[in-house]
């Protein structure tokens, strides 16, 4: 106990200086991290309070996998539509690309028109 308590005291004494050091970093990176979990549709982004915000997705409403995946991606797009900065743009482009890929795969999987 005598060993450890001075470590806790010393750490607390560093808090004011540490707080000043991390503040500029906090402002600089706000809104620059956006991630989508494709498995769950959950979106993580850094909010204005500098904490990770999670946007959960509601249960799938459709019967087909394609419809549910497309719906999930559109929800994801809506959720981050106002995320500012490059990270927001990249995330939105990524979701649009995912929708395109999904549509292409769905088209490929269907029987095409007959040549006869």
């Amino acid at each position, binding site marked *: 106990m005598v060993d450890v*308590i001075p*470590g806790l005291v010393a*750490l607390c*004494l560093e808090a004011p200086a540490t*707080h000043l050091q991390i503040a500029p970093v*906090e402002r600089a990176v706000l809104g620059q991290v956006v991630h989508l979990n494709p498995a769950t549709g959950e979106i993580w982004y*850094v909010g204005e309070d500098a904490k990770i915000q999670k946007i959960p997705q509601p249960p799938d409403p459709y019967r087909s996998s394609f419809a549910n995946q497309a719906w999930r991606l559109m929800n994801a797009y809506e959720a981050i539509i106002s995320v500012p900065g490059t990270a927001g743009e990249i995330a939105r482009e990524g979701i649009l690309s995912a929708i395109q890929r999904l549509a292409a795969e769905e088209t490929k999987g269907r029987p095409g028109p007959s040549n006869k």
Partner: protein
Amino acid sequence: MALIMNTTEIESALVNFEMNYPTLCQRVALPEKTHDGRSCHALRIAKNYDPERPAVLILGGVHAREWGGPDIVVNFAGDVLRAYANGKGLQYGNKIFSANEAKTIVETITVYVFPCVNPDGVEFSHTTTPMWRKNRNPARFNGHPDSVGVDINRNYDFLWDYKTCFHPQAWNDSLASDNPLKYQFHGDAPFSEPETRNVKWLMDNIPKLTLFLDLHSYTGDVLYSWGDDKNQSVDRTQNFMNPAYNGKRGMSDDAYREYISAADQQIAVSLATVTRDAIAAAQGRPYAAIQAFGLYARLEQATITRLVGTLLIPVCQRHSLLPWNSISRATQKIRFWLPGIP
């Protein structure tokens, strides 16, 4: 008087602090009762509390059998309050803090202590099974006494789904387990346990949370972030939030490294060093200031596996699965793991 405080004594110590120093500290009631129905409290230490001040959060009693943690946290709070109230400094062996330093803590920052995160487990360890580590969640009880409980320190949502997030070769019981019989059982879902939800609630509701320290007992190290892989400061995309790196974390000899900015790395190392040096100055006990991921590597090399247990009160360490979800890597709040059984 018992040598180690039981859970009732820990709670009553906080009540006494609040009664004796009403202008310096207040208890904070946590929202969740434990499985055995216990109410939990933290203590906020600050003269003329101002939410704009930087805050420090210190936890103890996460792992039941690490008996030293709650006592250390309670005594730390008592020492600081008593020193400030009497206008005195603090001395631990050869380490001396001035009265002005005690004043700095009470007047310029806010300190939150949560001495006993897992009181059910601590009580069970004190009275029944000394080596008990988990909480006392009965949900998965199957007749075997070890099937009770969840490891609180594996129940946060930082990379909780370890079989998805980590490389298969990194899976081991030290990392986490989905087997309720294991001491590292991570629960049925992140934040499935009231104890972890209490910690999350605290972190979510503390303004300007700047530093976090979780006190465990094992070998004697001061650990800093990150704990899932080695640190690097070049590639931001290699981070725990990026599912593109699922299945690649936790290996020391591959390409994946966890991102930390160079500035934050410097802060983390500096804080760990300051903490280590203050500990060493007291009585000369050598602690190591290392990245949390280093614990795994050393354990694997030394095969220390279960030396744990006995109440080597002082401190140890724990790998650093970051214990909560809501502090962003963007803010890079620094966290340490003093002790902890791996």
